[in-house]
């Protein structure tokens, strides 16, 4: 049951988007989000949408998988939509009964809000779908490295992220084993009231935590044996390289932001 959990949701591939430097993807994503929040009109949303659709097409990732990832978020989308629909003041009243008024402005606004959230989520999905977790942590470490000057432990943070990602499947497997062991001795996780079910989890969590600490201890020894002494003097096997495609991506990102700004200045 627990083995079905997908992690990092990375779809390996060979497209241009996959091969971009993770730093490029992170920065362009930030630019894309900025553009999205600057957009106020059909035209500017259109520009952002075309950029995203183009990127998805190049990445070769099936559109279906984006919808799949969207499922848990339907509630938020509907909620935002309803809020904007009912609580936007406007001139053109479309429907009016009892205390509820729906205005044309409200409909448009609700539509834009939902569209904005959809574009936002799809954009971040595209990043995680096309970038392996390890590349992502490498990219983050490299982008945040100037913060080392103000004593932020950037290397340690990225090492921790990397180890956490590495151990998620191991710990899931372990949880499965502990659950089976407790079930074999008569534990019941599936029936009873909420409180009873929560209480039934304690005999899983306690051994899981103990074993996680033991693992951490052994891993620390093993890392020490392999001459780990923190980030100083450490090199990387896979160096991050900016290639021409990375510069084109920056250019594309800049064009989108510029286009949105220009449209905005014309009041569109």
């Amino acid at each position, binding site marked *: 049951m627990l083995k079905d959990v997908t992690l990092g949701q990375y779809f390996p591939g060979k497209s241009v988007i996959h091969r971009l430097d993770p730093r490029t993807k992170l920065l362009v994503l930030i630019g894309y989000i900025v553009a999205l929040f600057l957009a106020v009109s059909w035209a500017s949303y259109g520009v952002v949408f075309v950029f995203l659709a183009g990127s998805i097409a190049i990445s070769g990732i099936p559109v279906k998988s984006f919808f799949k990832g969207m499922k848990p978020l339907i509630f938020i989308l509907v909620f935002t939509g309803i809020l904007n629909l009912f609580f936007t003041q406007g001139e053109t009243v479309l429907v009016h009964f009892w205390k509820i008024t729906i205005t044309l402005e409200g409909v448009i606004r609700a539509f834009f809000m939902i569209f904005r959230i959809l574009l936002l989520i799809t954009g971040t999905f595209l990043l995680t779908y096309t970038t392996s977790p*390890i590349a992502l942590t490498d990219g983050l470490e490299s982008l945040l490295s100037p913060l080392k000057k103000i004593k932020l432990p950037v290397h340690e943070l990225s090492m921790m992220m990397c180890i956490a990602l590495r151990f998620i499947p191991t710990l899931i497997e372990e949880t499965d084993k502990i659950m089976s062991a407790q079930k074999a001795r008569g534990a019941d996780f599936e029936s009873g009231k909420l409180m009873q079910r929560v209480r039934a989890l304690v005999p899983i969590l306690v051994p899981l935590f103990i074993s996680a600490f033991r693992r951490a201890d052994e891993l620390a020894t093993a890392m020490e044996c392999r001459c780990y002494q923190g980030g100083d003097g450490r090199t990387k096997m896979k160096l991050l390289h900016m290639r021409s495609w990375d510069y084109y991506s920056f250019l594309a990102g800049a064009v989108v932001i510029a286009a949105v700004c220009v449209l905005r200045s014309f009041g569109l």
Partner: protein
Amino acid sequence: MNKAISVEHLKYAYPGVDDTPDIVVFEDLNLQIEQGSFVAILGGNGCGKSTLAKHFNSILLPCGGKVYVYGMDTSDEEKLIAVRRCTGMVFQNPDNQIVANVVEEDVAFGPENLGFASPEIRNRVDRALKQVGMYEYREHAPHLLSGGQKQRVAIAGVIAMEPKCIVLDEPTAMLDPRGRAEVMETITRLNAEKGITVILITHHMDEAAQAQRVVVLHGGKVAADGTPEEVFSQVELLHGIGLAAPDTVELCWELNKLGFDLPLSSLDPDDCAQILYERLKV
């Protein structure tokens, strides 16, 4: 031959918690290991096998006496990294020593720590993975590999640092027979082809029998030391400290009790069968 590791009058005790007294492991242990040899260290539970192994690369420091690794004192802090570069260590649970979530990234971890340039790391990683026969799996996620494969990745991670000596602390304890065979084949090959000193800590007699030299530890002392044939023929001594000789030797020993007069030196079943055949033919 040069000494790879030299243990001189080693004293070690785990500090007790609160009021409990210290747990003394070694009082006066002496042991020399030659460069390029393949030594198995045997012993029952709690005899100090793992504690000894941790002295070989400065994870634990002696309370008294000295441990020298290629002439370097392990308690000398300045030589810490040099000592650890010389002796790599492989532990029992492969899951708890793999750091990264891609095989090749994990093998690169050691060389990256040593600060080599990127192309040099690439070379070392490829070489190490080929040596343990895991090159085709370089882009796999470690948690999808079998136990034996994971342990071979862990060994590759150590040999990518190009140590002169590898210490393996019960590397096969958690593996199935096939995984055990894979790991044993890998380490014997590394010893024979690369001349890497191998120190194998184990409680499997048949694995110890593949070594050139067997050291039996008991109560913090060396109880027996010699070639596998020499050590395993001392069946009474092994039984006295809760160990068993390999099955072939046990068989001959039991038959000897019934009045046979068989040599206790056959460690391999074919050999043993041949001896029995010769004896029964008469």
